[in-house]
């Protein structure tokens, strides 16, 4: 099987960053790797049709594939008889620093809102670029971002301006 021209180089140089994006969306390294490889496999087949920089195209596949995986898998939890060990501390948040709490709060956001924050604050995309990736309007991006930030600010585990309550 012949690798499309420039594909190997793209994977070598751009995939570490894309993997991080995938991780921020999935919060699981193995799942992120699978998501990235799936996106790259789709990009492989469309490689000759991609005009310009392929990274936005691959990023869009990652975001959309993550959303569709979630739709397919969110009820696919595997039941288990053994519950994980519960921390013995009386205060379940004791020992966690502010960033840990923020990371956990990010995980509680709806997927679409989390994707908006990742694209905006990690990928440093403009609202228009985020809208292009998510295939929605700029207004939707702004409202989703606003709601996501508001939820984080209202999260009871986080204090205003990063201070613990």
């Amino acid at each position, binding site marked *: *099987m012949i*690798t499309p021209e420039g594909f*190997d180089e793209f*994977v*070598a140089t751009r*995939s*570490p960053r894309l*993997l*991080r*994006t995938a*991780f*921020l969306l999935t919060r699981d*390294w193995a799942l992120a*790797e699978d998501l*990235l*490889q*799936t996106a*790259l*496999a*789709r990009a*492989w*087949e469309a490689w000759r049709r991609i005009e310009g920089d392929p990274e936005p195209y691959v990023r869009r596949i990652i975001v959309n594939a993550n959303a569709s995986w979630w739709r397919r898998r969110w009820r696919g939890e595997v039941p288990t008889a053994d519950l994980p060990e519960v921390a013995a501390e009386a205060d379940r948040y004791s020992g966690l620093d*502010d*960033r840990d709490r*923020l*990371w956990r*709060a*990010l995980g509680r956001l709806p997927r679409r809102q989390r994707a908006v*924050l*990742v694209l905006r*604050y*990690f990928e440093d995309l403009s609202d228009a670029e985020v809208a292009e990736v998510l295939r929605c309007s700029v207004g939707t991006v702004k409202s989703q971002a606003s709601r996501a*930030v508001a939820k*984080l*600010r209202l*999260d009871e585990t*986080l*204090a*205003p*301006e*990063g201070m613990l309550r």
Partner: protein
Amino acid sequence: MNLTDLTQVLDERSGEPAAQDRHDERLRGVRAKVVARRRRRIATWTTCAVVALGGVVAAAVLPGLRPDVTPAPADSTSPVRIIDGFPEYANGARLVAVESAALPKRRVELTIVPTTLDLVVSTRCDDPLLQEKLSINGHDFLSHGDCGTVQLGSGWDKYDVAVGKPATFVLTITGTRPLDQSGEIHTQVPASGTFGLAIGERTPGTR
């Protein structure tokens, strides 16, 4: 919480495992996924083609396998009922009276009340060489000869036959004729065999 924290958290959390940057393994994984996608696509198309082909074959073959709902033809080649050796419908007429007898009896008699003078009188014998004589209301009918004749048409009024009035038809076997002779050569009548007389009325629209 401030947005600087958010950017730092996203950056820190996604930057942990340096070992994740193994692009050779990643490329192998991508190739495997591409191959799998192509196989799935080929399998899908093959399945579609097989289903379509199966549909075409089924459409062509199944009509032949379906049970034939056409009713089986009747055993009899003729729908006409036979009554005492005479067809119920023949020569455009429907039987109204039949009488048969077995030799050595030589005479049969029928009395009918015609509803029309368009009558058909038929005779039959097992042996066509039997000689017959027909009389109507005591008048000898014009023809004598071999058994199995059919007399059609009008002219019955000459024998006192009238609509609504009883008329008697008598068939008498007078003898038999040798095969190589003609004329009125009467010989001994066979001891067995049957003969009969039938009278029909022409049905409307058959003339």
